[in-house]
Structures are given as structure tokens and as C-alpha cells.
């Protein structure tokens, strides 16, 4: 293939960043472990993160998570460790700060005053691991029910131990301080209203508790977790390939991208990169998934606005894509198409024709919709200057993907840390200027066009070749070997029963998901089952910010803001 000459071999990204100021001022107080993580003593954590944030420009907190080393095979300084994942404003460097917690007292200072997103992230860690954050404004459960006893991601919590919880959280413990901050001491003139979890516009099971004056939202509190099903706990009990069907259920609007993100991360741990053809197929199908994810988001948002016709204009092409995906993968919604080291099977004959037909339909649908709304005064009045997120705030909130780009920050992992030959494709990053609902919608429309550009280039350049890594320790053998000789049979047996053995390490990697940075932080102990998996769902920070954004607006605005942030309960609640 001629085009393949352009292709640069893919780098397996390692956190090889150098936060200079931090290293200088903490010279003899940190150490680096074999996973390139900075180990810092617990008492310096605030100081260290402040230094990173202010002096080294690491002003994006990607995630906070904990690790329970109870059943770990090697010696550990203490049972629990906390990991902070940060990224700098050039988007090129990622650092991970790890701190071991004293066993006697599981307590650490909260960093919620430094990063807005830390508030929810720390609540989740408290919920799942029972680690207490001092000075946290409101340390309560996040994903699990408030009556839940114990901390499910601890290694000594049995996976089978279900609990029956019934009491509803009235959320007044959060609402009253918020109202008092705004000067409302009496609540007699306010109406309290639950927008969700079963509201027609909550698109899933998301609850927003509002205090209303007329229809103006004075104060709002969001509650999530209605769709929490313990994805991360399940991962600790399955082999790597068995986890792939679970990832389908994260962002179910673009299941393939979750497949890719997980498989890509595990391949990074294995130190392999999938063959060129597999990379191209991942780009093709991944971009197609991004398109349908955007179509869902846009269509739902327009329906919330009453522009019902656009729903069919956008969903009909999505239907065509689903037909294509079902032909290719055997399933429409939950595709489970990727495998560690490649994918289930190659493209079918005539795939290109079907793809071109899909693209034509998508282009027509997008053009029709835009012709209805682009110059529509009502549409402009409803979306412009509604749900504004300023660029600075968006970074602090930890937003990513189209939501961040709508605020005017050109951050796209496909550009800043290209994987799968994205550096060789000619495409643009769409950015907005204001960060309102209008920008978020228009950025998505433009990204659909850019994804089509990528697909067209990828389809032209796709090389022939294998679609699985040629390594018996990773890929399943051919069926003729399984049935034909004992080596093949044993190989198959070992891979199915024990899983792909991933070298022991702690690893974070992310790809550009449909609504932002979709990251996986995986800890392996060398066996075929991950020791810990933590997803960094792109809409988690958006949902954390949502309640504050809608304050001051009306119910109608809140509905549009929620839709435009593209909150998907599946990956939010895990």
C-alpha cells in the first residue's frame, strides 16, 4: 500500500513528563516508582499538588482514585494508596502522584479547594474505599446508596454481598447550605422540585433537585448513582477479554469507543501495538461511533427544544449505522467487537459500499437538520448564552471533549497524543467561543463532518494484513489449530481460562471518547485478571459541574444544558 509509507509507528505513551518546579522544590521528598509515579508522603500532598497546579501548570485534575493492596502479592508500605492523575495545560504531560495512607487513620486532606472536580472525585473515593478527606465540604456517598454499609471496592468486600436499600435521599443536607450561601434563610417562597430521575428530559436516570422561584432555578443539587452496577468491582473478577462486553455498557451510545479505550490501555500495558489494519479498522469504526454518539446527543437536545422533526432526520442515519454495525459485529448497541490485541473479525465484503451509504445518509441528515435550525431565530434564542461555561472554569472543572472545545480550548487527544495514526489524517478540531449550549451543539455538528473526513481518508489508506497481534500469549489461535493440534488447543484453553497475562504495573491511558477523555487506570498483578480498573468517564466532571451551571436559569434552560453536556448515565454511574 502506497499510503502506508506515511504512517509513523505508534508510540506507546509513557508518562515521561518532567514537572520541573515540582521536582526542584520537592527534591528529596519524592521518589519515583517503576510505573513512573511520584510517591509523596501523605502530609505533603496539598503542597505538592498546589505546586504542580500553580508553578508547573498542571491545572487539570483528571481523576482521583484509591488502591486497596490487601490481596496484593508484593510487599506494600500500607494497605491503601491514593492516586492523583493530573495533566498540564499544554495537554502533553500527565503526572500521577501516589501517596500511601497510614493504616491507623485513613485520612487525608481534601484538595477540593484547588480543583472543582475534586469534590465529586473525593466523594467517590470515600464511597468506594472509605478513605476520609478532611476539610471536604460535603463528604457523602456518590455512587452507592446512602443506606449502604461498607465500601464495595475494598478487597475484603465480597462481590456477592448485595444490600437492600430503600430510603430516598432528600438532599436537603446539600440544598440548605447552598441556599444559605445565596442568602435564603427561609424556604417558604421556594418550590422544591425533583427534575428526574424519571423526568422525560433526564435521558437516563439522573436526578437534579432544584429550588425554584417561579420557574427560575435558585439552587440545584445533582444526585447520581441510579445506574450504578459495580462495573469496577466486576472487572476485578473477570479476565481482560471478559471485561470488554462490560465496557459496552459504559457509554452505550458509542460502545465501540469504550471497547477501543479499554483494549488500547491493556495493549499499552502489554507493550504491543495492534497491526496496522486493525488500527485502521479501529479508527473507522471508532469515528463512526463518535458520529452516532453526537447524533444521539444532538437529536435528543433538539427534541428537548421541541424541534421534533430533527430527531428523525438525525436518527434515521444512526439507524443505518446500526445496521452496518450489526452486520459487522453481530450486535447493534453492545458490539463487543474489540479484543485485547485486535478485534473479533475482519471487515466483511462490501463493507465500503455500506459505509459510503451510511456517510451519505449522515451528511443528508445533518444538512437537513442544519437547514431547519441554523438560521432559526427561536433556536438561537433558546441556545445562545444559555448554560455558559467559560474556558478557565471548564479546565478547572475537568471537562474534556466537545464540551471543553465549545468553551474555546482546542484540546483533542487525537491531536495532542495521537494514537492509531491520527497524526497522519487531515482533520480539524472544531472549537466554540462562548461555551454555551449553541457552541456545544455546533461543535458536535462540525465534529461529525471532521469524523467523516477521517473515515474517508482511513478507508482509502487501509492496508491489508492481520487484525490480531501475532502473539500466542495474547491472541486466540486459529480454530483449525484448536481442533487440529494439541498446542493450539492448550493455547486456547489457557487464554480462555486464565486470560491474557498482563505484566504487573499501574498504568493510565486515555483516548478521545465521543464526549471527552475516556481514560482507564488499570493495575495488574501479573495475572489474567486486573487487580483494579478505574474508568475516567468523560461526563463525570460535566455532571459534577451541571448543578452550578444551571443556577439562575430556568427549567427550560436546565433541560437544554443537560442535553448539550451529553451526560450518559451508563458511564457516569458505572
Amino acid at each position, binding site marked *: 500500500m502506497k499510503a502506508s509509507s506515511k504512517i509513523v509507528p505508534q508510540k506507546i505513551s509513557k508518562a515521561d513528563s518532567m514537572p520541573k518546579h515540582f521536582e526542584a522544590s520537592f527534591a528529596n521528598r519524592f521518589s519515583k516508582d517503576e510505573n513512573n509515579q511520584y510517591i509523596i508522603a501523605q502530609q505533603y500532598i496539598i503542597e505538592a499538588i498546589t505546586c504542580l497546579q500553580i508553578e508547573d501548570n498542571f491545572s487539570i485534575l483528571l481523576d482521583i482514585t484509591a488502591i486497596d493492596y490487601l490481596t496484593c502479592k508484593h510487599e506494600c508500605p500500607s494497605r491503601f494508596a491514593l492516586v492523583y492523575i493530573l495533566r498540564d495545560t499544554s495537554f502533553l504531560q500527565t503526572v500521577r502522584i501516589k501517596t500511601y495512607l497510614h493504616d491507623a487513620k485513613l485520612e487525608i486532606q481534601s484538595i477540593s479547594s484547588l480543583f472543582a472536580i475534586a469534590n465529586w472525585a473525593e466523594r467517590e473515593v470515600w464511597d468506594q474505599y472509605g478513605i476520609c478527606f478532611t476539610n471536604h465540604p460535603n463528604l457523602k456517598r456518590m455512587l452507592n446508596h446512602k443506606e449502604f454499609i461498607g465500601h464495595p471496592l475494598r478487597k475484603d468486600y465480597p462481590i456477592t454481598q448485595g444490600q437492600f436499600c430503600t430510603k430516598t435521599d432528600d438532599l436537603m443536607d446539600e440544598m440548605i447550605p447552598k441556599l444559605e450561601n445565596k442568602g435564603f434563610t427561609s424556604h417558604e417562597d421556594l418550590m422544591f422540585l425533583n427534575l428526574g430521575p424519571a423526568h422525560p*428530559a433526564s435521558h437516563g436516570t439522573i436526578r437534579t433537585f432544584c429550588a425554584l422561584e417561579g420557574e427560575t432555578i435558585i439552587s440545584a443539587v445533582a444526585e447520581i448513582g441510579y445506574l450504578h452496577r459495580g462495573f469496577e468491582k466486576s472487572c476485578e473478577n473477570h479476565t481482560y477479554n471478559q471485561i470488554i462486553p462490560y465496557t459496552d455498557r459504559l457509554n452505550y451510545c458509542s460502545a465501540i469507543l469504550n471497547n477501543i479505550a479499554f483494549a488500547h490501555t491493556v495493549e499499552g500495558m502489554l507493550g504491543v501495538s495492534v497491526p496496522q489494519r486493525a488500527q485502521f479498522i479501529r479508527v473507522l469504526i471508532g469515528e463512526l461511533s463518535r458520529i452516532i454518539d453526537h447524533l444521539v446527543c444532538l437529536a435528543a437536545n433538539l427534541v428537548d427544544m421541541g424541534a*421534533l422533526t430533527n*430527531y428523525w432526520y438525525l436518527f434515521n442515519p444512526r439507524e443505518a449505522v446500526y445496521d452496518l454495525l450489526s452486520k459487522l459485529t453481530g450486535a447493534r448497541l453492545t458490539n463487543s467487537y474489540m479484543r485485547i490485541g485486535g478485534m473479533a473479525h475482519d471487515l466483511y465484503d462490501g463493507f465500503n459500499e455500506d459505509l459510503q451509504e451510511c456517510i451519505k445518509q449522515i451528511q443528508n441528515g445533518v444538512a437537513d437538520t442544519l437547514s431547519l435550525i441554523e438560521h432559526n431565530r427561536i433556536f438561537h434564542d433558546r441556545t445562545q448564552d444559555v448554560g455558559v461555561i467559560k474556558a478557565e472554569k471548564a479546565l478547572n472543572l475537568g471537562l474534556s471533549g466537545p464540551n471543553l472545545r465549545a468553551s474555546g480550548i482546542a484540546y483533542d487527544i487525537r491531536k495532542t497524543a495521537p494514537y492509531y495514526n491520527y497524526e497522519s489524517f487531515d482533520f480539524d478540531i472544531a472549537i466554540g467561543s462562548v461555551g454555551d449550549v449553541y457552541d456545544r451543539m455546533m461543535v458536535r455538528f462540525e465534529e461529525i463532518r471532521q469524523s467523516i473526513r477521517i473515515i474517508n481518508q482511513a478507508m482509502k489508506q487501509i492496508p491489508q494484513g492481520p487484525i490480531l497481534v501475532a502473539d500466542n500469549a495474547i491472541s486466540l489461535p486459529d480454530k483449525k489449530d484448536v481442533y487440529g493440534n494439541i498446542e493450539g488447543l492448550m493455547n486456547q484453553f489457557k487464554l480462555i481460562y486464565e486470560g491474557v497475562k498482563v505484566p504487573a504495573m499501574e498504568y493510565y491511558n486515555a483516548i478521545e471518547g465521543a464526549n471527552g477523555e475516556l481514560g482507564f487506570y488499570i493495575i495488574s498483578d501479573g495475572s489474567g485478571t486486573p487487580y483494579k480498573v478505574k474508568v475516567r468517564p468523560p461526563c463525570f466532571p460535566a455532571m459534577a459541574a451541571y448543578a452550578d451551571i444551571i443556577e439562575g436559569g430556568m427549567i427550560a434552560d436546565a433541560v437544554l444544558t443537560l442535553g448539550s453536556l451529553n451526560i450518559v448515565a451508563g458511564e457516569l454511574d458505572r
Partner: protein
Amino acid sequence: MGEMAIVIETVIKAITVLAVVAGMAAFATYIERKVLAFMQRRLGPMHVGPHGILQLAADGIKLFTKEDIVPQNSIKPIFKIAPVIAPASAFTAMAAVPFFPEFTLFGYTVHPIIADINVGILFVMGVASVGMYAPLLAGMSSVNKWALLGAARTVIQLLSFEVVTGLSILAPLMMIGSLSLIDINDYQMGGVGSWLAWKQPLAFVLFMIAGFAETNRTPFDLIEVESEVVSGYATDYSGMRWGLFFVGEYANMITVSFLVSIIFLGGYNPIWFIPGGLAILLKISFFIFLFLWVRAAWPHVRPDQLMWLCWKVLMPLALLNILLTGIVLI
């Protein structure tokens, strides 16, 4: 002709109007679904009868046989009576609407109007606005926050647009000098050129816009918009009680179409070779289609934008129109 004959004639007319308009309202739901489906590239109802034509019968049976749920904490008498107000007021308003030109049946001249009162238009608008109580009472008696929000929206929307409707129609009435709809119709007897829409274009547009708001159609369908207030005042209603709101709404749509046709577009006067009866049917069909077309094409506004539109744009324009008409007439 004795008094008895008049009573019988009126009763027959009333029953005919009730039956025909209720039928039209039901048929309008089918048309709406088909027209929207066509515009949205789908099929709409297809399974009951040829092209789903019997869907409305199926819907009717479903509505009548569904369990009648009255929420435990609602204010029951009001909750039960509220849905009746909607169609009742909508049909009563039609008493003063002349639907067709008069015609002769078996040598007997029929005036297709139930009551030719000399303040016809006042009567129609007055009675139609009583219909506002239906969603208002329904919303307040449901004891449901969404219903309450819907009721609040109803009051601000319908009450505000009453003003625009009234003011916009004032200017044409000044030219005609009568409140009887028959007189208004007769004023435009001179063919297409004599239509009031040409003489009062602003009033025509304002009345149309207000008509969309009064009948709760997109882009002003804020009263029961699903994505914001769940189902507004009708959140707790089901079965035929809910159906009655629906019938009232469609009857209102038909009334508004008749009013616009009679006041601004020459009513039931014959155009060229088209006889008057057919002419007005074509006109109201066009307006009903317009309602659907707008629904398919546009998103809806926000309540505060609706108020802005009403009080800061439409009402000043209506006043200006009256002023200009006054100056011209003097």
C-alpha cells in the same frame, strides 16, 4: 313558524355542529399524525385499517375504556370537572360562528349558525377564553408540582395573548363597524381583493400569532411540553378525562381557523368559481395544515421569551395598528 320550530331547528343545528366538529377534531388528530409523519420521513399510523385510518376509532375505544385514575390527594370534584370545561367552552363558542353560507334544504332556508347574535365575535372570544379554566383548575387540583407549573404557564400564556387577540382584532372591527361575524363576512363580499387581510395585514399576522398561543401550538406549546414540565396540567390525567382536554384543544384549533378565515380571508364568500361553502373549508384546511407545518419545522420558545414577545413586541404593534387605522378612518 312557531317557537317550537325554532327550538327544534336550533337543537338539530347544535347536535350537528357538535357531531361534525367533534368528528373533525378526531380526524384532525389523524391528519396531524399523518402530516407530521410525512414531514418527518416516517409512516405514522399504518396498522389499524387501510393507512391507519381506523386508528382514531382505536384511540377512541382505548380512551373510553381506560381506567379512570383520580389521584388520592387531588381535590376530587374540581379534578373531575376540569376536563369538561375545555370542550364545553370550545363548543359553546361555536354557537356564534357562521360556518357556511345559507342554503336551501327541501325548500327551507337554513342559516348555518346556531345563534346569530349581533356581538358574535365578542361572544366567541369571551366564551373561548373561559376554556382557560380547564387547564388552570386541572393543574391546581392535581396537587402535583408539574401540574402546578403547567397551570401557571397556562395562565400567563393564555391571559397575555387574550390582550393581543383583542387588540389586533379591534382595528378591522373599526373599519367594519359591527361585531357580528355575518356582517364581517358580508363586508368582504367583493372577491379576493376585498379581503381584510390586504387592508389589515398587521392585524392578520398578530391575530395568527396569538391564535398559535391561544390554541397552545408550537412554537408556543409551553403548557404541556414534555421535556420541561412532563405533561403540564395533564400530568395526572388519563383515559377519557385526558381525552376531553384533547378534544377541546382541537375544537379550539378549528374555531380559530374559522375565525381567521371569516375575519381576514373573505369567510364563506365564493371565490371565482369556487362556491362559498367549499372556499371556507379550503381555508380552514389550510390553516390547520399551517399549524402542523409550523409544529414540524420549529422548536418552541421559553416562557420568558413568550412574555417578551407578547408584551414588548406584539401588544405595542397592535396598539400602533389601532392608532394608524384610526387616523386613516378619520
